[in-house]
């Protein structure tokens, strides 16, 4: 368990050492990144079995919380800690001409992402989030799409993304400041302990709103997601897949952690519902108009993330479970779709008859799309079912609106996705069929892998359900978090401290009163 910190430290070191290494041995530098990723995967798999119903916390450097910095390792964080190196490995820029600093940025991304999911401290989360942001701005520039116009677009998209992201960071910082003013600590477990008393008020809610907007930039949350079509349009599909699939989910995870632990107010959830449902409907509406596949997928991604937010905004463990289901499903499907889209650039009309040219790829596309739409018995259906069923059982009217929005958006989604399917299976070849790019082997492998997993999950839906629900239960259990991070001794300390402070305060009052 102790060496789990290497998952953050090793890539971080590698990120800074790789450029230096490249001066002495180019090959060594290139291999280092991969090595680090493999080591990360090995470390995580080695602790995989040890975390089940009982989460584990780990104080870095031996300082006890709440003063020290802790890692919190439960099923959720461990799952994502594993997914991060795996996904980054899958979308690793293998190319020979890749500049070494790109690898370095990828390493930075790995380190910050792993830190983000494992960290049990709000400010650490902020720091890792910022690092993640820097890495992704850099990657957007570095992995601009090929072509004459590629570089300029990537630069401009990166700058616009950066400005939005920086504003978001500031919002998050202000939110953290408010929390600190209220509670006087930034340790999540400590905050969780104090939250019902200190954060269950207007100030706490506004802090949540600010953090939601701040982190929401990465999570493609409704009003701060204008960067999505620009960036995905400007960068390689590989990076788009990574960002839409993995990075957005990491930001969502952060929001969920904060929400579950710190903000018990129903208004916080409902704010998220509103933004989520606006995201669903606006994303799907624009995707309906899109004329090329990447743009369509970008907006579809906005819509899907909106769905994720709607799901997570349902109170209780069922909401968390629905959210995990739809988030993981999107994490699986969207990258695969981006991979398929990379060979199918150009206007949609030019894809006429593509299925005749490459029937296997078209069939894969249909399968993925159907799961995205929620056609039973594919996993996407179960995810959507969870959302719908749980939305309907909520009493607050905002959830009923959300239900309507989600269902309408699905119809729109069906309209454009099936239109693409029909274009692919068009009997006539389009005029531009000859200039179409070929799919690269690794893209097909990834998409096929996703399809295989989809089918496997569809067959094993019962056991998936048990896993997800146990994950949701653990994530949603605030007391469990507190008990895991603090030993009994710590807790006694904290209670003692609080009591002392409170008595001080009271004695002050009495003093004033006596005067």
């Amino acid at each position: 368990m102790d060496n789990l910190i290497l998952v953050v430290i090793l890539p971080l070191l590698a990120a800074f050492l790789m450029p230096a290494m490249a001066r002495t041995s180019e090959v060594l530098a290139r291999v280092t990144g991969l090595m680090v990723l493999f080591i990360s995967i090995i470390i995580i798999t080695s602790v995989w079995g040890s975390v089940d119903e009982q989460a584990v916390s780990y104080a870095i450097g031996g300082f006890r919380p709440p003063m020290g910095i802790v890692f919190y390792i439960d099923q959720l964080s461990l799952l994502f800690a594993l997914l991060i190196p795996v996904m980054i490995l899958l979308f690793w820029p293998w190319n020979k001409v890749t500049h070494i600093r790109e690898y370095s940025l990828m390493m930075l991304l790995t380190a910050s992402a792993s830190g983000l999911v494992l960290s049990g401290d709000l400010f650490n989360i902020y720091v890792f989030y910022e690092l993640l942001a820097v890495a992704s701005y850099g990657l957007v520039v570095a992995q601009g799409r090929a072509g004459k116009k590629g570089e300029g677009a990537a630069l401009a998209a990166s700058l616009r993304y950066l400005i939005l992201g920086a504003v978001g960071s500031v919002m998050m910082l202000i939110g953290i400041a408010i929390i600190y003013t209220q509670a006087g600590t930034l340790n999540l477990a400590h905050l969780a302990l104090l939250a019902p008393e200190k954060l269950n008020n207007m100030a706490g809610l506004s802090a949540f709103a600010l953090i939601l907007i701040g982190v929401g930039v990465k999570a493609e949350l409704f009003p701060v997601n204008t960067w999505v079509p620009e960036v995905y349009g400007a960068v390689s599909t590989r990076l788009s897949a990574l960002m839409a699939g993995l990075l957005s989910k990491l930001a969502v995870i952060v929001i969920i952690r904060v929400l579950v632990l710190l903000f018990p107010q129903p208004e916080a959830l409902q704010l998220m519902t509103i933004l989520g449902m606006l995201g669903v409907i606006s994303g799907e509406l624009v995707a309906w108009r899109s004329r090329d596949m990447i743009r369509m997928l970008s907006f579809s991604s906005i819509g899907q993330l909106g769905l994720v937010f709607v799901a997570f905004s349902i109170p209780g463990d069922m909401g968390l479970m629905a959210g995990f289901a739809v988030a993981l499903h999107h994490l699986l499907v969207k990258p695969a779709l981006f991979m398929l889209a990379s060979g199918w650039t150009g206007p949609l009309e030019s894809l006429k008859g593509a299925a005749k040219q490459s029937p296997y790829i078209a069939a894969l596309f249909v399968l993925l799309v159907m799961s995205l739409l929620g056609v039973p018995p594919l996993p996407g259906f179960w995810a959507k079912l969870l959302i719908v069923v749980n939305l309907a059982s909520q009493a607050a009217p905002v959830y009923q609106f959300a239900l309507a929005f989600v269902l309408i958006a699905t119809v729109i989604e069906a309209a454009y996705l099936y239109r693409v399917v029909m274009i692919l299976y068009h009997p006539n070849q389009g005029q531009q069929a000859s200039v179409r790019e070929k799919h690269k082997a690794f893209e097909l492998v990834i998409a096929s892998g996703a399809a295989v997993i989809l089918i496997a999950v569809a067959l094993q839906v019962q056991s998936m359900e048990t896993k997800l629900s146990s994950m949701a239960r653990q994530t949603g259990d605030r007391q469990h978090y507190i008990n895991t991070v603090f030993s009994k001794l710590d807790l006694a300390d904290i209670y003692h401290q609080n009591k002392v402070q409170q008595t001080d305060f009271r004695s002050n009052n009495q003093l004033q009163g006596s005067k």
Partner: protein
Amino acid sequence: MSVLDEVFILCALGALVLFVFHRIRGIEKLAVVFYAALLYLLIKMSGLGYGGEVIYSSFSLNILGETLQWRFDAVSWFFAIITVASGLFSAVFMSGKWGESYREKTSNAAYGTLQIALLLNVNSMLILLASGDLLSLFIGWELVSWASFMMMALNPDKQARQAAIKYIVYAMAGAMAFLAAMAYVYGITGSLQYAELAQASAALSNGQIILLSLLFFTGFAIKMGLIPFHLWQAVAYAETPAPGAVFLGAISARMGLYAIIVVLIQLIGLGHLQQIHIPFTFWNLQTVLAWVGALTTIIPTYIALKQNDARHLLAWHGVGQGGYMLLGLMTLNSLGSAGGLLHVFNYATYQAALFMTIGAVIYRTGTANFDKLGGLVTQMPLTFMVMVFSIIGLAGLPPMNGFVSKWMVYRSLLLDGEPLLFVAAVIGTLGTILSVYKLVHNTFLGQLRVEHQNVREAPLSLLIPMLVLAAIMFVTGMMPGLVLDWVASAQLAMGLVPVTYNLGGIVLASGGLDMIWITLILFYGLGVGAIIFYLLGGRAKRVHQYDNYAGGHFLTSRVRYHYSHNFYAGLMHLIGGWYRGSFKKLEQAIVSLVSLLSQLSENMYRSAQPAMMVIIVVVLSLWSISGGIN
């Protein structure tokens, strides 16, 4: 292992085999064997059609705290036997010459795909029919939609493809309405089992029932193409390849009716449908649904009257006939609901036969356009005969089976004293008569076109299924008791009072129906007519078709005069103005609205200042904090 398990195993096996070998010649024979085997298994379950016990599958699935189980009761069996029989007939139809020509026109793979599509349709429908709770019903529902979409998308024609897209959007909208209803059921009862809903529905408030019924009904109505969701179906069905049209036309849309039976009648319950009044009106739910059925008999039928393509005409009638079934069912008395159910069977027989005749005509002439046909009776007399039999059924005239079911619907409306519904049904029937005459006249009667002078009778492989269907139509018309056995069992399963019947028809105190007598009387009458015509007077001389009188001129044989375009000119002159396309405009309006919203959203994404958005969010959150949401 129950028989139902065997059915599912056979389905899976068939799908697998067909998928692997679909490019191979001879696969069509295998498909026929498959459907025959399926039919055999269904016959093994035929106890269900005679009041047998419900058959459960021996496997189930536990998810979301729900047990998904599959089972067959009398209603499912009734629909299933029609489904599988339709599949068998389509498969036989496409196994012979038709298949060969389709292969030549397209490819082995395309033909195999058609076979796969048909098989998937049959299988998905069986899964739907076997569903034992709302969740499995929904799963079956979506599978059916997708299989139908696959079938429709096979035609490379542009119009057909657009129809398929339209279909899938409609189907998705219907599925979402269904899903919403299901979610509400879950929200109320915390379960998706039929039994729970049936129990809980007794305690629901009127508003909840109305909302639930409306959502469910919308979902099911879209599949059935009921008003106001009728626009998608006809074009989509008409444009599928002939065997596909046979199958889809015969039974596919009836899945909506099945779902209505299961959910609205069995679960929400008769009492609710009859008692709950829609606020601010004097209608109850039953009346509303019955009127939807009645309007569906009228509007699509008169749209059919205007069609200029045989397939479209038939498909529009298919939509209209769905209205009769719903109308019959929604009388909720034993006679009317039996009529509605019986109509499902009867309609399947003649609609399948009709699409087959048109398929045969297209096979021989290459077109179903009325402007390019005519006079084929001399060339294809057997096909013509089948068509006449079928249109007699479609129009609901004795002695074919269509008459029996329509008679039952009318009779029950009479018993209930529903004059306006009755009139609506009659208007629909009369429109049907007009339009089926147009069908048979414009295709088979009138002058034969020059290019069709060498057309021969349809090949045997096409004729056999048609003739068998015609025989079924006649036999079950004369002896409706054969099918009424199944219908009565289904009614019992639905919780209705079963109809009293005998082999010849309906037994009722105040005037029943005895089809054996009626058929005999009719044939006696025709015999008398034949005696009067043939035995008396001189022998008639057969002359050439064009040897006819036209105001003192001979109609030359080079220029054809076939009165087919705008056939009912006079009537159209009168009622033409009523075809305003209001529903079409509504549909367009919705599409425009969506595209407007879409454009607005896009502009927002394009031009929105990120910081502006942040401010909006801050304002929004302040609003929500100050309790603006609730």
